[in-house]
């Protein structure tokens, strides 16, 4: 069935029936093209949404304080709530609901960084060692803050890549001293953030920050990671519990969002993923629908094709074509057309998505919009090939019945089918 002659026969048939071939091929190419666009867009959306959460652990929660807005236990609103180191210990002991805690003390005023003749002002973030994993800090050389730095109040600093470039140029900053205002800090590490969000931030131990910059035991914000839960309700329950605990300590209404602000990333994440799953399901339903439409298109055209070729098939049979050679002729032709057309549709679809991706990456590289809701909208190779194989197999299956019908045509009837 696979000798050269058969293919020559098929090619000559295809060449002589260009419109028919085009119509069959077009429905297949269109089906697979639409599927690729759809899946690519779906993936783009998914990647974009996932990207929104990639800067931090998805189970991170931030806590900050403000002034009370609800009177509580006889006290008027407008009281300023302040965290302190005892709150850190309290949260640290909170047990199963919370995993890691990092407190932050905001350094007062503008901190001027000086190294030799270079200087500049940068954001300084004081923290616990745990922040490394919580905010996905990416240390590219040296190390991050550790427990010894904390307990010994060491004057060490981890600087962002851009700070390093600004102050140290090509020099290796590790082990060198940079002055924060007039206090020398030893550089122990360099971080790099591919999203350039924290490129001008440096990290110092919160204990050191409090001691050097007159912070006493004052803490401005907490970053904590919560237990990984599956539902929004569970996540919010954890938030509520943390709020209640701290409210009790600082005597404010737990529902007072002004007194203490909180943001639970996990609840947000679960919510977003839920929406996204619905979108994904929708994309697949549409995609499968498109695929079915393509298959139906192929089988329709195959039916017409066989009907149209009844006489030709009758002639061939009268001249000695065996049923299997008739089936082979019809089937191989349709498989050839679906494969080539499917491949073209696939290439064009994937090509367009890659082009869009290229455009997005270009605009990202140019610094336009660092937070895209649409990212890397491409279809992975396996999905593409799988859907194409499905299309070809279904096309062949759909074509098989007409082909069998053609093979069973009695030559007499086919030849009588005249005028």
């Amino acid at each position, binding site marked *: 069935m696979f000798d050269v002659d058969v293919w020559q026969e098929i090619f*000559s048939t295809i060449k*002589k029936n260009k419109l028919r071939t085009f119509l069959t091929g077009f429905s297949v190419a269109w089906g697979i093209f639409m599927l690729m666009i759809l899946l690519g867009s779906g993936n783009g959306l998914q990647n974009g949404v996932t990207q929104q959460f990639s800067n931090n652990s998805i189970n991170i929660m931030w806590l900050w304080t403000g002034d009370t807005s609800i009177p509580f236990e006889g006290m008027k609103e407008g009281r300023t709530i302040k965290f302190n180191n005892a709150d850190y210990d309290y949260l640290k002991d909170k047990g199963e609901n919370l995993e890691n805690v990092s407190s932050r003390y905001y350094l007062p005023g503008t901190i001027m960084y000086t190294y030799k003749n270079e200087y500049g002002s940068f954001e300084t973030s004081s923290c616990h060692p745990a922040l490394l994993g919580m905010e996905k800090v990416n240390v590219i050389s040296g190390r991050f803050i550790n427990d010894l730095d904390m307990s010994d109040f060491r004057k060490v600093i981890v600087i962002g890549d851009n700070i390093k470039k600004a102050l140290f140029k090509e020099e290796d900053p590790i082990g060198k001293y940079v002055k924060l205002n007039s206090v020398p800090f030893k550089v122990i590490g360099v971080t790099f953030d591919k999203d350039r969000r924290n490129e001008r931030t440096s990290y110092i131990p919160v204990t050191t920050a409090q001691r050097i910059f007159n912070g006493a035991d004052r803490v401005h914000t907490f970053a904590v990671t919560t237990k990984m839960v599956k539902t929004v309700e569970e996540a919010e329950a954890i938030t509520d519990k943390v709020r209640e605990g701290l409210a009790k300590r600082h005597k404010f209404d737990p529902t007072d969002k002004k007194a203490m602000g909180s943001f639970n990333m996990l609840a947000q994440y679960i919510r977003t993923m839920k929406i996204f799953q619905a979108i994904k399901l929708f994309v697949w339903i549409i995609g499968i629908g498109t695929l079915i439409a393509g298959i139906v298109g192929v089988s329709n055209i195959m039916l017409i094709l066989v009907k149209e070729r009844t006489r030709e098939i009758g002639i061939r049979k009268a*001249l*000695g074509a*065996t049923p299997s050679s008739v089936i082979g002729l019809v089937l191989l032709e349709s498989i050839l057309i679906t494969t080539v057309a499917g491949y073209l549709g696939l290439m064009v679809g994937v090509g367009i998505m890659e082009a869009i991706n290229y455009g997005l990456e270009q605009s990202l590289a140019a610094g336009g919009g660092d937070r895209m809701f649409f990212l890397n909208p491409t279809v992975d190779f396996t999905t593409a090939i799988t859907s194409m194989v499905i299309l070809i197999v279904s096309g062949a299956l759909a074509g098989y019945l007409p082909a069998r019908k053609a093979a069973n045509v009695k030559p007499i009837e086919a030849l009588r089918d005249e*005028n």
Partner: protein
Amino acid sequence: MIQISNLHKSYVMGHNSLHVLKGLELDIEEGEFVSIMGSSGSGKSTLLNILGILDDYDLGTYYLGGKLIQGLNETKAAITRNEMIGFIFQSFNLISFKNAMENVALPLYYQKVSRKKRNQIALEYLDRLGLKEWAHHLPSEMSGGQKQRVAIARALISQPQIILADEPTGALDSTTSFEVMDILKEINDQGKTVIIVTHEHDIAAMTKKIIRLKDGVIEEVIKNGDLQLFKDRVRTE
């Protein structure tokens, strides 16, 4: 060449069964030039289909070249057809998107003859029928007579033992009809058995034996010597 005895064939149409051939007996020797005549419904098309192994029969025996043709499956029937029988049809039945040469070469394709070789043989046959210059033309570019000659070349190319022609002149004007009949006669002179089905008396009269069918059996066989008589009778009819 052909021995048929007690041949029965009926077609089932819904609840009715139509008994078309009713115990037909027929012997055709090698090298005969026979025409089968009969009014519509006499069973001549059915007989032709059975002769051409395009259709099966219910009862009786059919020997073609000493070989019993009975209950063949589609594949065997196709092979036997390809090897032993050359068909010529009223409406030529050329494949419209193939040129004359490719049409003629088609039976050899099913014998797995290489493309180059079968096209070469096809050209020889076309040449023999005076159509060499038309080898690369499509059927739509040819006249009826030319198309029928292409069809004849196609019937001959597999060197079959018998040629079956179903109303070969039915779509042609009388001049062309006679040309085609001359070609068939020539083929017969070369020793091939030629059987034509026709309802035209003057065409039938050009063959060497006429078999008249009526109601599924042979009503009359007019042999060579009696042909003149037949011709006279036709004139008076």
